[in-house]
């Protein structure tokens, strides 16, 4: 199968089989990622963004998780069809991932150097000693001071920001084509967040790695991404270029997300309107409502919203939205 994109996910469906029933965490997600670009994937907790990432990496816990359908095209092969053995060559080497919790994502009983070295030994066939030196170089590139000494330290000896840098160093060690960053700054102090994003973007420039940035923080997305995919209840509800999405927001859910960002200084300027929130909660993945999954929380819900689910409708160049409001009458 051929794809003009670096990574193309088509109609991906991933479910979890639990005692309470089947949770359809990812329910027909499609998106693509081009060389060197940064794609933001936004959504509330539980919308399926992390599961999408784990599915692409094929590191879902199976069981209970299962990829039930769809294709993940990377380098003209369907990743869902690869054996775990074939997948291991891609994982880490060509598609790398960093996680939300730098506190728990590094193994506490091995040194930082040991853990970064593994990448070089595994994917580049380096000797232990060469790998250690390469690891120190990587630490230097993510601006960790005294990298030669730091490689011999354990994770608990580093601060949260340092650990996340070490994670980035590890993920980018083999210059992967894609970096999936799952909430990379959520667990960090605000001051550290900016540094981490800067380092990621700078390394991206150097290596040409494409980044898939998963977050619920629209600030981070606005800062880093070229394009944005908004997810809700396991589906893509809106997709657009960053500027377009922030200026010509269409989906009521995306509008809700934008309206819930506090505006700095608006209170003292007297222009503050009370911060709006999206009413209700994300639907349980066991009982996704019929029709549009967002209708119960939507101010604009119509009769048709409960009856049928809208398709993702192209409304402009690169801008698509899944909402009856924006689907012309004749297509309904």
């Amino acid at each position, binding site marked *: 199968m051929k794809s003009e994109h670096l990574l193309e996910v088509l109609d991906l469906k991933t479910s979890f089989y639990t005692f309470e029933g089947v949770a359809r965490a990812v329910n027909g997600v499609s998106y693509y990622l081009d060389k060197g670009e940064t794609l933001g994937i936004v959504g509330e907790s539980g919308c399926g963004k992390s599961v999408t990432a784990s599915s692409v990496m094929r590191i879902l816990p199976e069981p209970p998780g299962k990829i039930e359908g769809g294709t993940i095209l990377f380098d003209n092969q369907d990743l869902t069809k690869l054996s775990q053995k074939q997948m291991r060559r891609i994982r*880490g080497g060509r598609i790398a991932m960093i996680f939300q919790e730098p506190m728990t994502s590094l193994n506490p009983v091995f040194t930082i150097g040991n853990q970064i070295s*593994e*990448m070089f030994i595994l994917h580049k066939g380096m000797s232990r000693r060469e790998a250690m030196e390469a690891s120190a170089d990587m630490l230097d590139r993510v601006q960790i001071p005294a990298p030669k000494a730091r490689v011999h330290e354990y994770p*608990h000896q580093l601060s949260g920001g340092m650990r996340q840098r070490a994670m980035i160093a590890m993920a980018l060690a083999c210059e992967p084509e894609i970096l999936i960053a799952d909430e990379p700054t959520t667990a960090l102090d605000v001051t550290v967040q900016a540094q981490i994003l800067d380092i990621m973007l700078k390394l991206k420039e150097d290596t040409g790695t494409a980044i898939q940035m998963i977050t619920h923080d629209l600030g981070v997305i606005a800062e880093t991404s070229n394009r944005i995919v908004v997810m809700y209840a396991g589906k893509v509800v809106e997709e657009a270029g960053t500027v377009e999405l922030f200026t010509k927001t269409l989906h009521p859910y995306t509008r809700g997300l934008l309206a819930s960002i506090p505006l700095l200084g608006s209170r003292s300027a007297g222009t503050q309107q009370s911060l709006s929130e999206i009413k209700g909660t994300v639907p349980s993945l066991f009982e996704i409502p019929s029709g549009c999954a967002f209708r119960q929380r939507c101010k604009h819900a119509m009769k048709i919203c409960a009856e049928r689910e809208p398709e993702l409708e192209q409304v402009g160049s690169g801008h698509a939205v899944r909402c009856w409001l924006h689907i012309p009458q004749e297509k309904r």
Partner: protein
Amino acid sequence: MATYIIRRLLQGIIVLLAVSTVCFVMFRYTGDPVLMLAGKYATQEEREHVRHVYGLDRPVHEQYISFLGGVLQGDFGKSYVSQIDALDMILERFPATFELASTAIMISFIFGVGLGVVVSVWPSGWLSRTIMAGSLFGISIPTFLIGILLVMFFSVYIEIFPSFGRGDTVQIGFWRTGLLTASGWQHILLPALTLSGYQLAVLIRLTRAGMRETLSEEYIKTAKAKGLSPAKVVLKHALRNVMIPVVTITGLSFGELIAFSIVTETIFQWPGMGNLLLTSIFETDQPIIVTYIMLAACIILTINILVDVLYAFLNPRIRYD
């Protein structure tokens, strides 16, 4: 680390002092050794004579001080029965017990951790179910019963292993070892299996519990995301973390196995310290009993310190300063 060890050693000395006091008091007030020493049919005068010779007629605090003085010089007195130095008697038996306990702990560690990993990696297979059911047996069946069953099967029915004794031994310096002869290995297998049974079951369950917890950690996801093989993920990244509690428990029980392998030694007539202790209890041979208890305390204290050191080595988050 050095300061920590020194501190632990000092604490150990206090513990030993307390143990010696308890021993002394206990034996001065439970039973009269003179009855044993002088024999049942001794006259009153003979008894008084014995009492005087052994210093048992002196005031208690004097006896205690001279006892303590002796202990500090490594003199635990002579066996009432054989008139041989008590410490020498026990130390002569020490290699047998140590070899038995070491073999047992090796069996339970290797198989306990190995099978524990198997059941956590393939939790639903029939092999895992069998192992888990077996471990339940291991925990519930008393040691003496395991021993008797093993003897019944391996020594009586299929007659491949002897049921008692230590087999041929070789003297190397002060150490008499049975691990250098084929017959020694044949003899040690059944008692070692018996002794390891309970510990083996505990370690399987401990490893499994630790593995279950560790395998759901974030850093395991990281390790998988790196593209590492499942073997490397489990045996390097997960197992090293699981080893922290496992090694602690193994170390602590090793001390116990050395000190209290009495039942197993009795079943298999193993010429070790436990067997000697039991005989001495029957004969109210106080010096032997006291020496044994003191030695057991020493061994357990030493092993605890070693375990602490090993613990710091395995768990970089712990540095004892």
